[in-house]
């Protein structure tokens, strides 16, 4: 069986192309001084992780300046977000309470309460002397029932 696949290693000693040579020069230049070159930034980070050096004064000041200015802007955004969430939460709670209270088992119409009124209807004949306390008893018992009904109506359980 003949293996037709070429497993020979790449020719590392092959001559560089002009393009590769230019890229290498750019990388070398970027390593010499701070720049935005992506490969240089990565290689510099690797080198500093292996052997850290002191920050340059200018870079140090720039880092401090950024640290002191960015959080303030971030704080303003944070306050706005928190206020927004607070207002939304308050409105949600109020709406939930309104729904809870208004959907409680109350009669659909207005709450009907027994009104104060003459007790005349409780009596079917002219008053007799000596029967006053019996009349007061009757009035109190009748209105006690009214008061109980009114409370049930106000609680929405009638």
């Amino acid at each position, binding site marked *: 069986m003949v293996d037709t696949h070429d497993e020979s290693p790449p020719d590392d000693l092959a001559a560089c192309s002009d393009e590769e040579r230019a890229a290498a020069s750019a990388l070398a230049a970027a390593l010499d001084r701070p720049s935005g070159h992506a490969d240089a930034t990565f290689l510099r980070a690797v080198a500093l992780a292996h052997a850290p050096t002191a920050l340059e004064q200018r870079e140090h000041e720039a880092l401090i300046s950024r640290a002191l200015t960015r959080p303030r802007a971030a704080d303003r955004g944070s306050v706005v977000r928190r206020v927004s969430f607070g207002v939304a939460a308050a409105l949600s709670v*109020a709406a939930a309470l309104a729904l809870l209270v208004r959907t409680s088992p109350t009669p659909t119409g207005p709450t009907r309460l027994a009104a*104060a009124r*003459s007790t005349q209807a409780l009596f079917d*004949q002219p008053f007799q002397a000596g029967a006053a306390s019996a009349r*007061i008893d009757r*009035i109190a018992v009748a209105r006690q029932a009214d*008061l109980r009904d009114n409370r049930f109506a106000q609680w929405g359980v009638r």
Partner: protein
Amino acid sequence: MSARLRFFAFALTLAACSRPFDSARSDAGEHAIDGPTMAFLSMARARHHEANVRDAQGDIPGAIGALEALIAAPRPADPTVPEVREVLADTCARIAEFELGRNRDTAALARLDEGLAFADAPTFFRGHLLELQGIAFEMRANALADAGQRENASAAREQALDRLRQAVSIQERIVRERTPEAGP
């Protein structure tokens, strides 16, 4: 959350909860039967039964004192509650009955005048007060006649007849209202 936001949320919650739960008015805007009204009626019941007990013991001044305590007691803020006014009217009538039982027509008539101020509508309460007034004037007329004061006795008799006629008139009116088919 800031204090202003908390206040806003609290105000919203209050607004959401604002319902006629605290209403002490009926649909027609009348005073509804409420706790203070019932407390007064309960107090009236207790005072009248106290008067019963003292009356049974022969302590008429004590019975009158119990009823006078009810008249002097605190009342619901709304002075127009009919139940309160009618109970006060009937309490005055009962005091007058006790006074008449002691032959004190002047004291009885004073209480009856007070009771009539509470019962201005044509009800059994007003009719009963007028009837007792007639009896009090009749008692006064008899006492004056016994004392030889014929003219004063005659005037008191006229007052008695006037109050008794008014009492009858109210009772007739009530009978007509309750039984429209009743005769003349």
